[in-house]
């Protein structure tokens, strides 16, 4: 009974957090982009435009859902749902504080990667089911990109597993009580952030929804709240990958003065801010450059990094 109550409570909290967090992140993105471009950004709806994204979401509630007649009906309906469903699962193992984690599974790291790896199935499904040439190209590119960047992501987190001697995310955070791993593994951090950017389709790597060439990429045919769900899951993936980066490299909930969850959220939002900052700095990579960058630069570098870490462990054995 107690367990049931715990499941329901954690579900409600996670769902509420996902919705509010993505709305806030969209607002933050618009504000950051505006400031970088010397604009003001959302200003009039609510306090400093904070209700702007809320208005957008409400508008989508009242927007017609179009079912294109040439599409694959079942897959078209399932695609946004399948891209949203794994989002909640990834929150299971993220250690927001010392004891503030829903389920501290011993394969936590793998679970997060498994759930975030599921996202591109929804994306490719959307691209295929729409029966639209832009969507299909977007979906194809998305899959090529996601599978290319999955490998450096996993390889760079291997270093952390070696350092912390555990898959459990809270153990990894505990191992960084004195020194965050970003100081010991700067190369792994850079590789991780780069591939996390690509995994969540953010701008230097947002080929799947490149507006200048593919209209809106895989969600060209999606209207209203179906598109909104893609949007929510995209932003939540950004948040999840920055949470994982925080737990793996930035020392998680460790920090002076403030309580653990405050440090964790601050660090995670800082990583999100860096992701947005990168987005509004760099232009989009070309599709072939993007994939060759993963295979020719990131993967050799991360393989090299693993061997270096293994050697270092060997040397520091005593």
């Amino acid at each position, binding site marked *: 009974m107690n367990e049931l109550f715990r499941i329901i409570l954690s579900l409600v909290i996670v769902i509420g957090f996902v919705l509010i967090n993505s709305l806030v992140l969209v607002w933050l993105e618009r504000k950051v982009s505006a400031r970088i471009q010397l604009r003001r950004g959302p200003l009039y709806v609510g306090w400093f435009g904070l209700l702007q994204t809320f208005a957008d979401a409400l508008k989508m509630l009242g927007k017609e859902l179009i079912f294109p007649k040439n599409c694959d009906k079942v897959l078209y309906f399932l695609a946004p749902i399948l891209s949203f469903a794994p989002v909640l699962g990834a929150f299971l193992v993220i250690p927001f504080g010392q004891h503030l984690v829903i389920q501290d599974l011993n394969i936590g790291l793998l679970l997060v990667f498994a759930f975030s790896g599921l996202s591109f199935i929804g994306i490719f499904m959307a691209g295929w089911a729409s029966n639209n040439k832009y969507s299909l190209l977007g979906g194809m590119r998305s899959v090529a990109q996601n599978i290319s960047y999955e490998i450096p992501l996993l390889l760079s987190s291997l270093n952390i*597993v070696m350092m912390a*001697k555990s898959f459990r995310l809270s153990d990894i955070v505990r191992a960084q009580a004195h020194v965050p791993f970003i100081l010991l593994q700067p190369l792994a951090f850079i590789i991780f952030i780069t591939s996390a950017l690509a995994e969540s389709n953010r701008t230097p790597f947002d080929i799947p929804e490149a507006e200048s060439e593919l209209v809106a990429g895989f969600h060209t045919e999606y209207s209203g709240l179906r598109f909104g*769900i893609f949007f929510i899951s995209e932003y939540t993936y950004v948040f999840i990958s920055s949470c994982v980066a925080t737990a793996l490299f930035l020392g998680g909930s460790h920090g002076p003065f403030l309580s653990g969850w405050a440090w964790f959220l601050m660090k995670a939002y800082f990583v999100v801010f860096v992701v947005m900052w990168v987005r509004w700095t760099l232009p989009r990579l070309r599709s072939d450059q993007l994939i060759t960058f993963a295979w020719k630069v990131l993967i050799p570098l991360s393989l090299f990094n693993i061997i270096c870490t293994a050697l270092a462990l060997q040397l520091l054995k005593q």
Partner: protein
Amino acid sequence: MSSNNYIYVLVFFVVGLLFAVAFTCTPLILSPRSRGKKKTSTYESGEDTLGSAWVQFDVSYYLFALIFLAFDVEVIFLFPVVLTYSIAPLLIDLLKIVIFIGILALALAYAWRKGIFSWK
């Protein structure tokens, strides 16, 4: 308790699915609807589409998928190996890891040499 842990994963996934279904179905009640001949047609910048989009696709994507499969499985192999190595770092294990990663790197070098990564 430990078997209970994984119930969370299942429950979260299922609830995620249900929530998304409910979420995508609310506009059906709230939104106005309209009908039209062109409304549900495929978007192609205002043109009528010619043929289906479900066509044969560039083979290089397929090659990427193949190397990915090989690499991904090997990375998953590396995870437990690296974990046990980090707990008790023996020299012979280091050698094995280096050989394993060396073979991986050779596969990468082969694919690189064959020109899979350069698009034509």
